[in-house]
């Protein structure tokens, strides 16, 4: 499939008066690792659950692999695997019997996939699931999901609480997995540094709304932090196309732009700046700019993200 694997139009979910997810319209193509980022409570899990038919949208429509998310969710769940944040496993089973039991539910199950990964990761097959370390459990769950040979893999915080080496192994596995054919991964996380590494596309949610959406490298190419030296007409500059914000501090102003950095740098010099320097911005810096984060004012939601 070369077209969109996941499509949504105005997808929204309201719980009482709370807008958990508002008006999400996506078109995600095959072969993508899609990062769904945002602080805890931003709407990531609710969005994934709507896509898998586990909760009904209040408004809007969507499809996964061409199947309607409300009417054809069974078909979606046969072809997509989901790794929830609270990874419920059968604690008293050995790893071997867990795989055997779990696999019996799925027609496409290929035990060789699990055998290959678990061997490479040295996950002991005879040990009971509850005896495994957090890293081993996360790997077991991922290996089990891949045995189902899904076309789409949804992961909700797959790397939470893991040691750096396990995170590395899991991300590397996902990068390799999507390279091997028509496969798509949706990766929900509050860790922007992981999105930055492994995702080619990202949506950042904040209070259920998209605050940033696009190709990770494209975003980095466009967003720049310009330092303008000398006097600049700050209020006028704020109105220029492509300018996100202007923060003057004495004789140096920081001008954050989301597009046309080179043109804006030229215009700043024409408008009186004696010099302009451009710096790249990483996703964390862009996110903090977008949510108007001020150093020293720790907002709970922001704190959990950075």
């Amino acid at each position, binding site marked *: 499939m070369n077209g969109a694997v996941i499509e949504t139009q105005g997808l929204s979910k309201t719980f009482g008066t709370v807008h958990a997810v508002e008006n999400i319209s996506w078109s995600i193509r095959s*072969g*993508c*690792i899609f990062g769904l980022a945002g602080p805890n409570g931003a709407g990531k899990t609710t969005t994934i659950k709507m896509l898998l038919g586990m909760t009904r949208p209040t408004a809007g429509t969507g499809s996964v692999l061409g199947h309607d998310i409300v009417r054809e969710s069974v078909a979606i769940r046969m072809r997509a695997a989901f790794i929830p944040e609270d990874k419920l496993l059968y604690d008293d089973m050995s790893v071997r019997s867990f795989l055997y039991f779990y696999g019996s539910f799925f027609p496409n199950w290929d035990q060789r996939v699990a055998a290959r990964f678990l061997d490479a990761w040295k996950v002991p097959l005879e040990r009971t699931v509850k005896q495994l370390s957090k890293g081993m459990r996360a790997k077991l769950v991922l290996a089990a999901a891949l045995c189902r040979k899904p076309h789409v893999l949804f992961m909700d915080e797959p790397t939470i609480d893991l040691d750096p080496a396990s995170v*590395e192994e899991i*991300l*590397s*596995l996902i*990068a*390799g997995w*999507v*390279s*091997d054919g028509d496969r798509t991964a949706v990766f929900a996380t509050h860790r922007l*540094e992981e999105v*930055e*590494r*492994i*995702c*080619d596309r990202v949506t950042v949610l904040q209070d259920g709304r998209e605050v940033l959406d696009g190709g*990770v*490298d*494209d975003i*980095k*190419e466009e*967003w*720049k932090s310009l330092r303008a030296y000398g006097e600049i007409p700050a209020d006028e500059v704020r109105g220029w196309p492509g300018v996100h914000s202007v923060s003057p501090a004495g004789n140096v102003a920081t001008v954050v732009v989301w597009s046309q950095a080179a043109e804006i740098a030229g215009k700043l010099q024409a408008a009186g700046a004696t010099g302009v320097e451009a*710096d*790249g*911005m*990483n996703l*964390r*810096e862009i996110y903090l700019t977008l949510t108007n984060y001020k150093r020293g004012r720790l907002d709970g939601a922001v704190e959990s993200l950075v």
Partner: protein
Amino acid sequence: MFHVRPESGEPIYQQLVRQITHAITTGAMKPGDRLPTVRHLAAELVVNPNTVARAYRELDQAGLVEGGPRKGTFVTFAPPAMLAQERRKRVQPHIDALIAESRVLGFSAEELKAMMDKALAQDGE
């Protein structure tokens, strides 16, 4: 061989383009050398395969590599003769200075050549 810093503001595909270009123009990678497969490099660097593919496409368009997803990607570019000229340009001022200094100190051209030959011979040992 390559190393990316995902947290940098520089897009990852550009970091790869820069590093591979450097390897090719300095001769560290030669025409005919095979680049790692997209899958291999993505898993090794733990970056998105589409990002690696994008870097390879850019290098292909720049005429540095050629290839495709099935046959592999190969270096096609050799540092041009201009680079040899560039190397000569950098040594020339030292030779000029050496000659000028030798004249001031009263060495003849033959003496200078003999000293040069001796020094080169010792350097080669």
